[in-house]
């Protein structure tokens, strides 16, 4: 049952092959037995899930089920869930139970999906290896000595290990696509504004965007469809109808113009990974696509600019965690300053503190123009690069990451090296474009991800391009040993 895709499970539920309750119990049992090693969940919500499953079974019986009704899913622990802890991977929120659902969670609830738990993540989504989580690192199911990527490492690992058929994630600089690549699953980050950020704990508001993990592009489309849409509670969400992402999945891609940015195939890219991506490009040629070399000349500036903009916003977004109203509060503060210093000092981990410091620095008087404003200008240049590229091509292809999963602890003390693992994904966030990562092969028995970048609101096209590839390859169907 657990190897089935969401589309297959939905069919099974409808045909009465199994009930949502059976499926949910099976899912919970697998999590209980297999996740001790992986640590992909922070919270498992068994009772809640079984209640939702029973309600879903009723809906299925009454014939008013949606595509996701009765399907077990897991939420990244960054989406607030009414009555169930939302920790954001931090000691700061270890005791935090939101009195409201995020818009994304409400949408899954109305669709009748079954939430089995909240997945592990880098603290406040700051990290590329899931090692900054207060709840300990997630292990990559393909090799438990390696990282799953981050920040949505738990969501990616849980799908890779076939613990749950679909999960949500958030992507600020690659936090969906990079772990999807490292864990060998399909991940999609839609256009900025497509998914509501209400109730999604903010890291960098102008970059954060919710998205999905699944085995296949088809499933990713089902999840994305359920979570997308305008939300009047999020002023940056965009009032544009959500298309049916299943409609164009099988559309012929003959004549599709694929752009390969030369900057994504230069130094820094692992040779073996490059070969895997080249093989994927060959598949696209066979499918009739036309390959065009393009340039994104400013993409090299994306990492440094990102590490100005994102920390700046995070330094302000994380000010609300002050020990006054919710979250961690130090014992017996002497006075107000002591309350602030110790509550925050104890509540936040090292990477979060590093980014708050960097952010406060780049926004401070005398440095604002040199850093923050400059970074905003770079951001416009990056967007302009993409704009010009999309005048020539329909989608952009390249590696999602420069190398496969690295070992746990390998980059933990080298933040800059860690930041560079997002070198191909960050530009997409800076421009607010949609991007995907699709399993495309292996290097040293570790998965390689193919990144597909589209123009604004062309999620449907991305899913189509990914689906066609998955029709002729089986990389996405490979399952790590011990989790079959």
């Amino acid at each position, binding site marked *: 049952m657990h190897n089935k895709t969401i589309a297959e499970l939905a069919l099974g539920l409808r045909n009465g092959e199994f009930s949502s309750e059976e499926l949910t119990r099976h899912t919970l049992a697998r999590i209980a037995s297999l996740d001790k090693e992986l640590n992909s969940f922070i919270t498992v919500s068994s009772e809640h899930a079984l209640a939702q499953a029973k309600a879903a079974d009723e809906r299925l019986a009454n014939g008013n089920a949606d595509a996701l009704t009765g399907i077990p899913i897991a939420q990244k622990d960054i989406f607030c869930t009414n009555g169930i802890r939302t920790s954001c991977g931090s000691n700061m929120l270890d005791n935090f139970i939101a*009195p409201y659902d995020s818009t994304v969670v409400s949408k899954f609830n109305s669709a009748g999906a079954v939430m089995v738990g909240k997945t592990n993540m880098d603290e406040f989504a700051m990290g590329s290896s899931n090692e900054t989580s207060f709840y300990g690192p997630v292990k990559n199911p393909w090799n438990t000595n390696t990282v799953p990527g981050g920040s949505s490492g738990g969501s990616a690992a849980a799908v890779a290990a076939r613990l749950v058929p679909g999960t949500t994630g958030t992507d600020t600089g690659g936090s969906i696509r990079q772990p999807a690549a490292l864990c060998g699953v399909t991940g999609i980050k839609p256009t900025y504004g497509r998914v509501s950020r209400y109730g999604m704990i903010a890291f960098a508001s102008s970059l954060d965007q919710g998205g999905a993990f699944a085995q296949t592009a088809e499933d990713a489309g089902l999840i994305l469809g359920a979570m997308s849409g305008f939300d009047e*509670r999020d002023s940056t969400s965009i009032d544009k109808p959500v298309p049916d992402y299943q409609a164009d999945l099988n559309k012929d891609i003959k004549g599709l113009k694929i752009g390969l940015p030369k900057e994504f195939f230069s130094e820094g890219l692992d040779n073996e990974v490059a070969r895997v991506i080249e093989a994927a490009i060959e598949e696209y040629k066979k499918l009739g696509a036309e390959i065009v070399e393009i340039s994104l000349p400013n993409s090299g500036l994306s990492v440094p600019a990102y590490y100005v903009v994102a920390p700046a916003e995070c330094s*302000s977004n994380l000010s609300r965690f002050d020990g006054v109203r919710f979250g961690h509060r130090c014992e017996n503060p002497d006075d107000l300053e002591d309350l602030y210093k110790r509550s925050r000092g104890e509540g936040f981990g090292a990477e979060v503190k590093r980014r708050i410091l960097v952010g406060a620095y780049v926004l*401070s008087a005398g440095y*604002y123009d040199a850093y923050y404003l400059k970074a905003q200008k770079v951001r416009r240049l990056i967007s302009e690069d993409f704009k010009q590229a999309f005048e020539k091509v329909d989608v952009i292809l390249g590696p999602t990451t420069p190398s496969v999963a690295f070992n746990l602890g390998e980059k933990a003390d080298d933040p800059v090296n860690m930041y560079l693992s997002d070198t191909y994904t960050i530009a997409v966030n800076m421009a607010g474009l949609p991007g995907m990562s699709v399993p495309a092969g292996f290097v040293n028995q570790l998965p390689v991800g193919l990144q597909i970048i589209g123009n604004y609101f062309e999620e449907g096209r991305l899913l189509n391009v990914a689906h066609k590839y998955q029709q002729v390859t089986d990389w996405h169907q490979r399952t790590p040993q011990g989790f079959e």
Partner: protein
Amino acid sequence: MWETVIGLEIHTQLATKSKIFSGASTAYGAEPNTQACAVDLGLPGVLPVLNQQAVLMAVKFGLAIDAEVAPISVFARKNYFYPDLPKGYQISQFELPIVGKGTLTIELEDGSSKVVGVTRAHLEEDAGKSLHEDFHGMTGVDLNRAGTPLLEIVSEPDMRSAKEAVAYMRKMHSLVRYLGISDGNMQEGSFRCDANVSVRPKGQEEFGTRTELKNINSFRFVERAIDFEVERQIDLIEGGGKVTQETRLYDPNKHETRSMRSKEEAMDYRYFPDPDLLPVEVTAETKENIRRTLPELPDAKKARFMESFALNAEDAGILTTSRDMADYFEQVIKATDDIKLSANWIMGDLSGFLNKEGKEINESPVTAEMLAGMINRIKDNTISGKIAKEVFEAMWNGEGDADAIIKSKGLKQITDTGAIEAIVDEIIAANPGQVEQLKAGKDKLMGFFVGQVMKQTQGKANPGQVNQLLKQKLEL
């Protein structure tokens, strides 16, 4: 010798029903923290959504002071930590405020007027309240006020005395109430100001070092705080010292200002555009639509009152202080034709009663129609001005309209010449000594005789008629 330079930053609470970025109510006086929703509490993941009413009110204000209303303005975050600031930042406007340069004309004591520049006005959210008492060494936080919309109006350093500052503040107060964008309630903190004060030797071009006086919430305090601070600065300089740039707090109980923080301790607020909110667009069409809803403003109304009703500048100024008072006046003179008498009654007795009971003119138990009715009885000699005071008080106390009170209390003036003549004769006969003196030229005694007659008639005689009769009888 010394010249004072003052600029004011006025914070006026906008009269929206809900908060600037959430749906919680802005009503004053609720139990602590009962009007603070998840957004006001700054819970994780929540987002602000701009209240369009607040924007429209700001635009209205901008148009009323002839300012440039920005087609695009931007909300920014002002970052600092304080327990009553839930998010750790205040959403305000910084580089691109919604209202740009404008002007406000104020009237000075000598009757002349002065144009004060308004640098800008921007939208922002208010913070909550820290309660330092009753918590045994701890501080309580009430977030009901957090997120209340404010318009911060920043003036140019154009004022040259505390009196000018008060005139400016009063005029601004009157304007926001005319526009209906604020209730202007100063006790509840809906209208308060910070004053930037410096002194310089007369004739010197450059400004002296300024201090900022924080959070002054009454017209009286603004004058006293500035006067105190000016004196303090002059004493300091004349004593060989230097004014340091700092923020000071005015303590109305001790009548002093004291230092809160110096320039060195001034915070770096690390302003940057709020990524949760889109830039605010105000189209030319919106502006025109709002312009059409602007009421007649105080200056225009005053000019009209002077021209149409032949009132002097002072009276016209007082009558147009508030829109309600001006409306009241216009209603009164619709029902009576004595404009001057109507103005005097409104500015005199009616205002006195209102002040005494702390009522607004729209809460007056004496309606405009009732006052006009009474004035008509003065005009047709049914009652004298003096009796009218008694009638007015009775109307105030809810005893009915003027006619009913005159009737029930028997206050109708005696106009029967025969009856008054008899009393006049009686008084003359009873006071031969005074008659002699009066005839000998001691004119002041005329008042004595009139008074006696009025006393005898319990004020119901017409004083003019009495005067006339006395002169006849005494052959003066």
